[in-house]
């Protein structure tokens, strides 16, 4: 219960700061939309090929957008050594990890909710029916991305050129998640159901659960690096 209360307290503070600065959300939204426009102009996709390629393009747009959010994740704590202030307080470091993860999930979901319909329009997808299921898969992928991203964002906090280092460390570890999300999205767009992509969905959920647990357990050591 204490962990939940502390997580909410830290998350509320992050949301309030973002509401005042609007730096991360605005940047992520415009970057996500811009990527979709670029992809749309670059690839002349026939309706038959949209189901094959569009999920990868959409998920890549989310990943790049999310990476922008991750590089800004501890920005509020970098000023005035606020991270030290949090680490010295009796707050559970697991709560700090959960709050930062949830904050990045909130930002990414807000971006996805606005960018996904734009994707539908730009790529002239025939039916809106798969949209809710696609959003759900994107949400599961977003959880995994934010969980692992938060761990690595904290680990690279004191590194020089962390904006360059973070994606270099993050993307290789994200390969199972990227594959699973794209395979699930592809099946949804082509068949309207998961079909034989169910094992990929299991992998996606497993990735989320494992790294969420690992994050809570090791975050204390990660921020101390």
């Amino acid at each position: 219960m204490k962990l939940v209360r502390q997580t909410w307290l830290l998350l509320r503070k992050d949301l309030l700061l973002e509401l005042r600065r609007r730096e991360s959300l605005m940047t992520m939204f415009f970057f996500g939309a811009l990527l979709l426009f670029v992809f749309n102009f670059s690839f002349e996709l026939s309706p038959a090929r949209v189901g094959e390629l569009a999920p990868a393009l959409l998920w890549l747009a989310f990943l790049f957008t999310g990476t922008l959010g991750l590089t800004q994740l501890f920005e509020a704590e970098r000023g005035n050594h606020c991270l030290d202030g949090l680490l010295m307080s009796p707050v559970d470091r697991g709560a700090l990890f959960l709050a930062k993860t949830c904050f990045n999930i909130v930002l990414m979901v807000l971006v996805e909710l606005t960018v996904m319909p734009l994707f539908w329009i730009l790529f002239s997808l025939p039916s809106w029916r798969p949209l809710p299921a696609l959003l759900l898969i994107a949400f599961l992928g977003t959880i995994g991305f934010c969980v692992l991203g938060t761990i690595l964002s904290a680990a690279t906090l004191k590194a020089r050129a962390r904006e360059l280092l973070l994606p270099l460390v993050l993307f290789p570890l994200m390969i199972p998640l990227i594959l699973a999300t794209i395979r699930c999205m592809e099946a949804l767009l082509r068949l309207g159901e998961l079909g034989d992509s169910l094992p990929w969905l299991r992998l996606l959920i497993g990735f989320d659960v494992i790294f969420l647990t690992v994050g809570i357990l090791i975050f204390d050591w990660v921020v101390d690096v």
Partner: protein
Amino acid sequence: MLVTVHQLAKAYGYFWALKDLEIRATGGERIALLGPNGAGKTTFLRLLAGAIYPTRGEIRFDDAPLTRQSARERAAVGLLTPGEHLYDNLTARENLGFFLQLYDKEVGPKAIEDALETVGLRRWADEYAGALSSGMKCRLSVAKCQLLKPKLLLLDEPYGVLDGGGVDLLESFLKAQSEQGSVIIIASHHIARVLDLCTRAVILDQGKLIFDETRREPWDSFARAFGAFLPGGNR
């Protein structure tokens, strides 16, 4: 409160910032932590505050070791560094409210108002901390410590940004805290001022403890110990 530091050492890579430190401090003591730049003062304070962990040795508060799991022990420690540990985009009032909740302190809005009034920031309660001057931020940190009431209060160079009124406010707060049984440790280069306030002096040099005595007059041994850092070897 009893603070026991045993064989404490901290290394950054191959560099030992602190080596085998042994100190005991009891409630009511006000300790001046002195030494030249790079002596290990800030590292020592950050170790005591639980912001970093020792490479070797241990810190105990009333016989309970300070470890990664010591939330209760960390709650008893306050570190006051001017202008730090405050969110620029939260107001003065919100900063105090946030940290009070973080420390699980049941304090009403009236207490926050009173604390802001005491440090002379009542008029700026709804200003963002980022808009406050360095001195005002330091006063806000003092208000934070007044509300959190730490049993071990650590201060790192608190005098640099405060005006005369601010210094008086800080010193009267520190005296009141130590009279209530808190241990106060102040790292500063304002030697005369800090010695005037403190009941004991500790000098570090290159991570080692080279002087630790309770104040008494005349204090010739302190003058000799500290004189070693001054040009010509004299105080």
